[in-house]
């Protein structure tokens, strides 16, 4: 698992991903790769949902109420999603 996820870049959910909220978080299915990811709480879902609207992933975390002490855990989560192409860097702003 990559630990060098860049929180200070703009990110977005890949357009081929279908997001399905669940009581405990959300399911993400990528129609291109046929991979499935499970977000295990509402806050990480809120982060992922706001990625496309925020200038950086860090801003998306802050907007979702992620506390500074929790940022590493959320960065790790985002890097897992990036590795499986669920989220991709946005080009430009």
């Amino acid at each position, binding site marked *: 698992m990559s630990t060098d996820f860049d929180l200070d870049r703009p990110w977005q959910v890949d357009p081929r991903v*279908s997001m*399905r909220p*669940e009581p405990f978080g959300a399911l993400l299915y990528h*129609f291109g790769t*046929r991979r499935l990811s499970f977000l295990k709480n509402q806050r990480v879902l809120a982060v992922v949902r706001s990625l496309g609207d925020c200038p950086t992933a860090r801003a998306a975390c802050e907007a979702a109420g992620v506390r500074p002490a929790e940022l590493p855990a959320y960065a790790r989560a985002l890097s897992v999603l990036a590795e499986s192409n669920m989220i991709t860097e946005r080009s430009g702003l």
Partner: protein
Amino acid sequence: MTVTHEAHQSPGAAPKLTDLFQRGLDAPICLTWELTYACNLSCVHCLSSSGRRDPRELTTDECKAVIDTLQRMQVFYVNIGGGEPTVRPDFWELVDYATAHHVGVKFSTNGVKLDAAAAARLAASDYVDVQISLDGATREVNDAVRGPGAYDTAMRAMGHLRAAGFEGFKLSVVMTRHNIPQLDAFKEIADRFGAQLRITRLRPSGRGADTWDELHPLPSQQRELYDWLVAHGEDVLTGDSFFHLSPYGSALPGLNMCGAGRVVCLIDPVGDVYACPFAIHSEFLAGNVRDRGGFETVWRCSPLFASLREPDTGGACRSCGFYDSCRGGCMAAKFFTGLPLDGPDPECVQGHGSAALASVSGAVPKSSEDHSHRTSPRSSGPVPVTIGRRRPPVHDCDESPLAGFTA
């Protein structure tokens, strides 16, 4: 990908994935949809006892209504099977309708209609995956189970897929006593055609109940199978069907749990909704898509599914140290061998299943639906497996799916 399990739960920690899935989701993640009971083959272990079309099959419009529901529920994926789904005249229309409505499709086929044109069409689509069924790496082993010509049909279909540039289609094998020695050969075949190998567990379901005694793996072969899977990691898919082998070592990739009625289910050709395709029996019938409220209501409100989503206490397996990884094995395997559902799997690697089977007396449950071709009737005892079985004759009045069809 491998699901990692937390060693312990601290208060406020994110919940274990399997615990969440066991409680059931608001919609399946994916499901099996048997489009027709019609089939050109008569495989001796067919889980759905297919062969003859059922006159009550869902119409094209009814199928489209199901797809609309799946889209609304955001079911990501349907595994279309049967019988042989491609013998339905509206097969391509339904596949196109599904993908146009954001429901991914993988269909399972013996290859009979997968010609060059079909392969080209599939290679051009991003949202349709194909799974070719083959149960022997040689004609001899395969055709003993799937009938004469089946091996050649599958090979021909895979050749078309490779020629069309369709990489990564699935070669799906049901593991039996006779083909476990061919695991490396299956991998070679998959590699040769640019396919991904998928091996799954034989269950005593449908006609599989009649041939279970001759076909199910021997205990030593289960160990061989497990070791082979560990050696091949995630190169080889399993449909999470071997979690009953987990006690041999670390868990295999996958959820390692029964998804029936929780994250997956079956829709059969007449619209009946079962917990899973290996459990076609009234005991596991949740409802019908033609009922008021359709599939969505069945999934959410069925008392059967509600009971499957209750926490699993383990029953007689609770005292076993391996229960956490093997989960008591396969519900369908237990049911159709006459074992109680709250006890060991018939193929329990600790041997608890064999002990339990010794106590089973009298008749065991049989599948509720039998659409076998009339010339190969189900018997109450084991059916001897021979090479060169006679194919059923094709006449219009036979309701044969291939009346008039030339291969």
